[in-house]
């Protein structure tokens, strides 16, 4: 039996099997997209409430009412949890990984299609659990998205009982879902590549998804153990994190950040994959330094495991440990500056076409440089004494994560939308969306660094309680207005998305003249992706090859004259 064995599967006909309990990686990707967009709206709403509370702490939030300190703490907790675990991860890993990995490697589906379906449904269960946690008596978790014990370990410290238990459960389910997904990604790429698709002919997106999956897999285990311990402290009377019973509060911080820092790269690397793929296509140039970028990303992934204590310089950790972690942290600038310089070099000498996806990709690079550079301030242990737990940190990680999730992810969505849905998105609306988002981003997160330098603490519901923060209030109002416009600008995207879905121009199979295999099949691809599994003759970025007639050379197109050489 050949591997085309798969093709005997006909497309399921019932609505449920086709759209709800589907094992098709493309349908599953769209399910993740729908869930992450739902959570994106939810997370955006929490951001709106947080911002207006800070802009006018003693007034009601427009359209909502008075926000009590309890509710405020719950809002910041939910905002962080939702944006990191229920927007960034499903969007960047599950949507693009699921949709593109089989298409890009020339496979008919994932290695374990039913496991794939299981992971999306476990994620759905996690979503339901998190939603339920908001409505149980006692209210939702309010110990911050980092959930530091003892605050999170005993109900009497927060007044939250089952809300926090369900929060832990929702996170555990989410981790399980992405572990299953990661196993699937890795196995699929190892076992199901099309003939000729060697590892060093994989598109960047596939490589970055693989590295992200491995980093996630290794980093999340200790936190799963830690989450079980936290839940036991809450419901079984154990004392892992409670000093009165011989436990250690800092243990959680180690377990959390051993995961938490690599997690940033789990989100960042897939975005890099998207940016590199998009940049190469619209510069009509090969990615500059394909292999070195992969090696640099592996180095960054490795280094992310030895920097976790930079979140804990002043946590009560032995001060002698701070400098070694400061050194490793600042060392991370080396692989990342390599990747960034390579991205800039990819633009050099190109024939750059600023379509919407390219705008978002270049915007993502620009924003990432900004966020990366402000990271140096945080990484330096002595200056972190001052800015730790201030808005400088908030501004920094929003810059890097928004670079990845927002600009990177949207670059990918605008770029692969024709492949996913068979229709083109509106370019004019897309460009307006980009420029508004980009301008508002600068207006929100530039000044936010100044809040942090002014000393404004994170997670305080009312900065007006402090005389030294009162001069910052106009700045807070300004940021809030810009953030509101930022949130409202997303309406343009939603309209563009929905209208294009229904009435967009029909997309050709390869509208951007790109090389990789997903463009070698119809838009949207048929049930088992390819009429016939393509054979691969070259790397993914052979644009503007001297001597070739076109400025693109698809991976699956045999060249009569260069056939032997290219193989």
């Amino acid at each position: 039996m050949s591997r085309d064995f798969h093709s005997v599967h006909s497309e399921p006909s019932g609505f449920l099997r086709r759209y709800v309990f589907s094992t098709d990686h493309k349908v599953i990707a769209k399910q993740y997209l729908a869930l992450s967009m739902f959570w994106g709206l939810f997370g955006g709403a929490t951001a709106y409430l947080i911002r207006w509370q800070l802009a006018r702490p003693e007034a009601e939030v427009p359209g909502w009412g008075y926000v009590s300190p309890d509710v405020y703490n719950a809002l910041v907790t939910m905002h962080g949890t939702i944006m990191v675990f229920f927007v960034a991860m499903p969007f960047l890993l599950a949507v693009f990984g699921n949709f593109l990995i089989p298409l890009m490697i020339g496979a008919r589906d994932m290695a374990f299609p039913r496991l794939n379906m299981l992971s999306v449904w476990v994620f759905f269960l996690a979503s339901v659990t998190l939603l339920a946690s908001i409505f149980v008596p006692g209210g939702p978790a309010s110990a911050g998205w980092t959930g530091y014990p003892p605050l999170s370990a005993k109900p009497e410290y927060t007044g939250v009982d089952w809300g926090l238990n369900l929060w832990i459960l929702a996170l555990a389910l989410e981790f399980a879902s992405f572990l299953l997904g990661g196993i699937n990604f890795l196995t699929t790429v190892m076992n199901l590549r099309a003939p000729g698709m060697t590892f060093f002919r994989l598109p960047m997106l596939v490589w970055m998804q693989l590295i992200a999956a491995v980093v996630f897999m290794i980093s999340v285990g200790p936190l799963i153990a830690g989450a079980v311990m936290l839940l036991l402290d809450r419901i079984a009377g154990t004392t892992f994190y409670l000093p009165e019973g011989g436990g250690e509060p800092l243990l959680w911080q180690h377990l959390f950040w051993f995961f938490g820092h690599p997690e940033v790269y789990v989100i960042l690397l897939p975005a890099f994959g998207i940016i590199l793929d998009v940049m190469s296509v619209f510069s009509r140039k090969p990615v500059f330094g394909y292999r070195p970028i992969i090696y640099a990303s592996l180095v960054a992934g490795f280094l992310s495991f030895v920097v976790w204590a930079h979140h804990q310089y002043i946590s009560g950790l032995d001060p002698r440990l701070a400098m070694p972690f400061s050194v490793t942290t600042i060392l991370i600038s080396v692989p990342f500056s390599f990747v960034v310089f390579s991205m800039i070099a990819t633009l050099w000498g190109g024939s750059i076409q600023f379509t919407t996806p390219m705008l978002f990709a270049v915007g993502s690079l620009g924003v990432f440089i900004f966020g990366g550079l402000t990271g140096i301030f945080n990484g330096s242990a002595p200056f972190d004494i001052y800015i730790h737990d201030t808005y400088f940190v908030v501004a920094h990680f929003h810059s890097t994560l928004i670079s990845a999730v927002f600009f990177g992810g949207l670059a990918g969505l605008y770029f692969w939308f024709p492949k996913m849905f068979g229709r083109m998105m509106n370019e004019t609306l897309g460009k307006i969306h980009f420029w508004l988002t980009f301008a508002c981003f600068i207006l929100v997160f530039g000044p936010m660094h100044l809040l942090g330098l002014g000393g404004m603490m994170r997670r305080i519901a009312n900065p007006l309680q402090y005389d030294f923060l009162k001069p910052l209030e106009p700045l807070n109002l300004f940021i809030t207005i810009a953030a509101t416009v930022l949130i409202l600008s997303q309406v343009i995207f939603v309209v563009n998305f929905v209208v294009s879905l229904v009435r967009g121009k029909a997309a050709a199979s390869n509208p951007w003249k790109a090389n990789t295999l997903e463009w070698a099949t119809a838009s949207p691809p048929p049930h088992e992706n390819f009429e016939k599994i393509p054979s691969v003759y070259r790397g993914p970025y052979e644009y503007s090859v001297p001597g070739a007639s076109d400025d693109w050379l698809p991976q699956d197109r045999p060249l009569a004259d260069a056939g032997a050489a290219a193989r």
Partner: protein
Amino acid sequence: MVKTDVMTPFVEAATPPGKTGLWWFLASEIPVFGGLIASYVVLRLGSSGWAEAASHLNFSYALINTFLLLTSSMTIVMAHAAARDRSFGRASLFLGATVLLGAGFLGIKALEYSGEIAHGFTPAAGIFWSFYYAMTGLHALHVLVGIVANLTLWIDAVRGRLARHPHRVEVAGLYWHFVDIVWIFLFPLIYLS
């Protein structure tokens, strides 16, 4: 399964996806136990009174359990060898033995727990007991999962369906060895120190 056409040119593809997947699954399990064990070691080194608490454990139960699990590792290897040779009768015998040994482990574990709880050593009795129940409990859950997997294969073998997917015995065996290896770490860390 004859792979003839050009679609499968890679050596890696000769590995069944189930096996590749299980290796990655184990790679994700190691950090879970690793995190728990590292937390235990670090906290224990940093404070006193743990050895006293540990002296209340029932060492003979743990020793018998170690013996049971090690024996079961042997029987699952023999089941794998039998399945590879396509002698499914023998495979079913060894799979059954593995299931029984695993069940024995859990039974003794239950005796051990109930004895400790009867003496007031509940999970809430102190930090050592918190770790003791979390570590051995998580391990026992893994044993349970392994028993279910092996039992499924045993039923397949008895009903003559194992011939369709004999490599699954190897995959189950990999998992079972992992469960054993975790115990090899837990046993000295908890009972011998």
